[in-house]
Every structure is written in structure tokens, then in C-alpha cells.
């Protein structure tokens, strides 16, 4: 069993990773609450944004800051486009159908990424990764700080946004009952568009951070969404703070399993295992069948 010393760097990695899981988890939960769509293309969108940023920097010599901005905006724009095109025609269908449709988007993006960039190994190093500071014996780079900070910050900001702003209240109303909300004069289309775009922005940011924390590989980044979904599911697609906690937990467990040699190679199974156990435990009390999120 490794010592406390050995765990320390992995606690840092875990916190950072967990922060980004929470970041994208929050994006998914907000979108689900406002539109009933669990966006499984979330990771693919972020991945594509990251690849575009990489290409802009390395193939076209664009300045890094602009490229990162493009990545984040790309996330917002593509998600918004999908939402505006396919949200309304599928609006009346059950959540399962809406989620499966987003898998279509995921495949399109995966295919595009594979076609344009193929499977060559790439790396994208954010400037913040190159700078860091020491906490005790452990080196912490600024990307990790951003990951954790954004995770907590976005959760807090979104929670406040949903409660105190008009747009946010509109989203919460939509989550409760779409039809009644429309009759109350809430501009449903606009609120939905905001939800799509906002969650897309978060996916772009998450993609950027993940490409640094994990690696720039289309399939890996796409299916990191599963960890974010895991966090969101543990929160029963409702509570933002539980999403944060769950995301942090998953990030920490996955990272801290690294130095434990006997299970290290299986550590990436952690999100799946945790989420499956959590779901089965939650369903025990029938709470998932009756919770709004399970519609």
C-alpha cells in the first residue's frame, strides 16, 4: 500500500480532474433540466473544439489565447446549432430518444475528427500547465488550479444564476413544466437557446482542460463524457452541488487508484463502477422512477 507521500500528487490530479468532471456535469444537468436532453455528445463537442484549437495553433500559427477562445465558442455554437435544429422536433419525445439523438451528433463529430486529424498522437499544452507552485512536496500547475477553481466556481455561479436571474428562473420553470411555462409568457425558445449555448460553452472549456489533464485524443475525450454523466446521474440530474461533489469524488478515486499497483490499470473503470453502484443504490428505493429526472 503506497504511503501518504505517494498519494499526494494524485490527490492534486484528482482534484483537478474532478473539478472538470463537475464543470461538464453541471453543464449537462442544466441543459437536462431546461430541455430534457441529456447531451451525450458533450465530450465530442469539447474534443472537436480542442482539436480545432490545436490545429489553429500548430497548423495556422494563430495566437494561443484566440485559439482557446475559438474552442470554447465552438462548443457553444455547435451545441446551440444542434439544439435549435433538433430540439423542437424531438421536444415531445421521451428523454431516452432525445439522448440517443445526441449520440448521432457524437458520431458525426467523431467521424469528422477521425477523418480530418486521424489517430496520430497529439498534445496540446496550455500555458498555465507550464507554470506552477509547490504545496509541500507536490507540484501543482495552474491548469489544475483552473480545473478545480472552475469546477467549484461554475457550480456556484450557475446555482446563483438559476436562482436569481430572469433567464435562470426561466430555465427552472421550463424544467418543471414546459407547457405551462410557455403560457406564462416566458420566451421558451430564448431560454432554451441560452441553455444550449451556455452548456456548450462549458463543454468547450471542459474539452480544453481535459485535453491538458488527460490527453488530446478524440475517442478518449469523447467518452470522458461518461464520467461527467456519472456525476450528473448521481445527482439524479437535479442538484448542482451534488454534481460537484460526485464529480470531485469520481476524479479523486480515479486518480488515487493510480499508485495502488494492484488496481492501477483498472482505475479508469472507477467512474463507471461508481456511477453504476450509485444508480442501482438509488433505484432501490424507487426514487429514480418517481424523480422528475427519470421521466
Amino acid at each position, binding site marked *: 500500500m503506497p504511503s501518504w507521500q505517494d498519494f499526494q500528487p494524485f490527490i492534486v490530479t484528482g482534484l483537478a480532474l474532478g473539478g472538470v468532471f463537475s464543470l461538464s456535469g453541471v453543464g449537462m444537468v442544466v441543459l437536462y433540466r431546461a430541455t430534457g436532453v441529456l447531451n451525450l455528445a458533450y465530450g465530442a463537442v469539447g474534443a472537436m473544439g480542442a482539436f480545432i484549437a490545436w490545429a489553429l495553433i500548430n497548423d495556422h500559427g494563430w495566437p494561443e489565447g484566440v485559439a482557446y477562445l475559438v474552442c470554447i465558442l465552438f462548443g457553444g455554437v455547435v451545441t446551440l446549432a444542434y439544439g435549435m435544429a433538433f430540439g423542437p422536433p424531438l421536444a415531445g419525445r421521451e428523454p431516452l430518444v432525445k439522448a440517443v439523438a445526441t449520440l448521432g451528433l457524437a458520431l458525426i463529430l467523431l467521424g469528422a475528427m*477521425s477523418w480530418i486529424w486521424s489517430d496520430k498522437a497529439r498534445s496540446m499544452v496550455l500555458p498555465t500547465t507550464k507554470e506552477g507552485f509547490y504545496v509541500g512536496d507536490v507540484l501543482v500547475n495552474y491548469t489544475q488550479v483552473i480545473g478545480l477553481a472552475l469546477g467549484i466556481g461554475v457550480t456556484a455561479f450557475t446555482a446563483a444564476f438559476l436562482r436569481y436571474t430572469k433567464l435562470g428562473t426561466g430555465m427552472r420553470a421550463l424544467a418543471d413544466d414546459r407547457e405551462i411555462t410557455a403560457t406564462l409568457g416566458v420566451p421558451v425558445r430564448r431560454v432554451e437557446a441560452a441553455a444550449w449555448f451556455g452548456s456548450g460553452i462549458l463543454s468547450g472549456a471542459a474539452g480544453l482542460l481535459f485535453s491538458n489533464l488527460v490527453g488530446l485524443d478524440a475517442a478518449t475525450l469523447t467518452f470522458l463524457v461518461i464520467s461527467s454523466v456519472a456525476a450528473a446521474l448521481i445527482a439524479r440530474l437535479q442538484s448542482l452541488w451534488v454534481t460537484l461533489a460526485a464529480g470531485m469524488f469520481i476524479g479523486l478515486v480515479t486518480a488515487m487508484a493510480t499508485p495502488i499497483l494492484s488496481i492501477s490499470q483498472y482505475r479508469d473503470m472507477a467512474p463507471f463502477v461508481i456511477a453504476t453502484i450509485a444508480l442501482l443504490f438509488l433505484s432501490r428505493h424507487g426514487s429514480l422512477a418517481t424523480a422528475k429526472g427519470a421521466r
Partner: protein
Amino acid sequence: MGAVDTSTPPPAAPTSKVRAGGRRLQPNEIRGLIAMAIVVVIALAVLPAILSVYWVTVLTAVAYISVTALGLNLLMGRVGLVSLGQIAVLAMGAWIFSKLSFSTGLPYPIVLILTGLITMVLGTLVGLPALRLSGLYLALITLMLAGAITIALRTMQFPNGGPGFLGNDPNSSAAVRRPSIAMSDPAFFRYTVIVCLIMFLIALWHVRGKAGHAWAAIRQSEPAALAAGVNITLYKLWAFALASFMTGVAGGLMASDVGRLYAISFPTDKSIVLLAVVLMGGIYSLWGALIAGAFYSLLPALLNDWGLPADLLTILFGVGIIQVLLTAPGGLAQQFPRDMKNLGKLIMRLFRRSSAPPDDGRAPA
């Protein structure tokens, strides 16, 4: 409203004239059976003779992927359950088959059946607690388990006669065995086709019988199904079990076909691609599974032959998912016969118009 007169008995219904004898086959069922027979005959007798070995192995893949697709087709089309991890189940089947194949000397068919049964048990264990969850959560659990299996396989790799439970020797290049009566590629292709035919017949038997009726009831209205005495949990589990059994058998065939298995052949996104092709092929007809198999295994080979990137297909399948969900839930299997019929009608109309003399007094051109 007049008083309801219950004194006169209701008139005798004319259904009495069809009572004699059992149920006659509907015309579309007869057509389906004939079509199936034709496909099987062509596959067994014609194709191996005219195609090169490469294309024969491609078609072998089409066959066992069709069986995998059949499992998913039954789950989605009959019971309305979505599994996002069937390729992981296929990998599991391949793993179990390899293990049994190397560790025991049992005859090939027995190993194949055992593989199906073990995969069935594992699949049902997953299904059991998950059935209480709504459709979305169930689908997500299958996605997560598929992801977990994919990762585990990357470390475990596949048994190839090596030591220990995992049975993998990285230096060995032993191939998974084939049945002694079907060692060559064309012979194994025929063997696979026969096994696939058996799987399709099993599926057909289910759909036409008690299980199919129960599934139809469950899909339309669970209260109505309960009122008919259907044990809904049991029949949902049975669909899971059947799909897992078939996919396990398909895994075994795949193992023998490729000989050497690698974890990278079973990435998570392939499960999504399978979902896409099953949807596109059509979930309301068993033929859809065959179309799905062709999309999954034949099209990439064709594109490769024509020098086009297979990634185009991934994009196409993504579009396909969205298109099917938006417009044609019956998929190609429903759309194609309809389109063919419409095309046929159009052709007949054109033919009649051109051959009939003009009747409006004008002289022919």
C-alpha cells in the same frame, strides 16, 4: 336514448366459417420465408464460389454482426429497451469463447453454446437490477458497463492459450480454433451462415409466439400487459437474456473468424455505431438486423475498396441516427419495401401511359 333491448340474442358472427383448421399463413409471411430461403441458398451455395477469400471473410463478419444486431433489434424493437454496450457484450462473448476454447477440449458446437449461455447469464445479471430503472437510466448503465468492460479488456487482453485465468500470453500467436469440419475460410463462412440462420429462426419463433405477444403488449401498455397476466419483469429479462445469448454466440464466431483478438477492436464507439446501424436497418423487422450487419461490416470494406475513408461512414451513421429518430422509426426495413412498392407503382403507371394510345383526339407524336 331508447331502452337497451337485451331480449334478442346477437346475430351469429360469420367468423365461424374460418374456424375449421389452424391459422393460415399470411401472404407477407410466406414472402418473408421465401426471401429468407433464397438468401440462405445464395449465401451457402453461390457466394463462396464466386467471391475471393477476402470478401468471404467480410461476409462472415456481416453474418455474425447481424446476429449481434439481431439481439439489439429484439431489445429495441420488441421491448423498447436500449443497450449502448452490445459490442462490449460481443467482446465478452469472444473472451469467454477463447477461454473455453483454449482451456477445454470440448467440441466446437458445445463451446459455442456454452459461450452463449454464460454470456446470457452475465447479461441477465446486469439486466436484473437495471430493469427497475427507466429507459434512459438503463441505457446509461449499459453505456457505462460497456466502457468498464472495454477498459478491463485493455489490461486483460484475450485468452490465447497462455497461463492463469486470464490466459493471455503476449508472445504467443495461437489462433482461436475453428470447427474441424469448417477450417477453411469459405467453409467457416458456411458454418457461420448456418449458425446465424438458427439464431434468426430462434428470434422468429419468439416473435411469433408467446414471448412476441407479451412483448407487444408490454410495448403498447404495461397495464394492459399486466391485465393479460404477463409478468413484465420476466419478459423484459427474457429479452435481455436472449439478446445476450445471441451476442455471446456471435462473439464466439467472431473469435474463430479473426483468430487473434485485440482489445482495441472493441472500442466504446463501436457500440454506438451498432446502435446506429440497427436503427437505420429498422427495428420493427428482423430483416433490419441483416441490413445492420451489412452496414456495419460490408460498407466499410466496400469504401476501403473504393479508396474512400471509413470515417465517412461514421458521419453517415451519426446522421442516420438523427434521421431515423426524426422521421422513420421503422428504419430501412420498413421504408425499403414501401419505397420499392411505390417505385413499382410508378413504373407501372409510366409503362401503361406510354403504351396506351392518347385518348384526347390528338394524333400520336
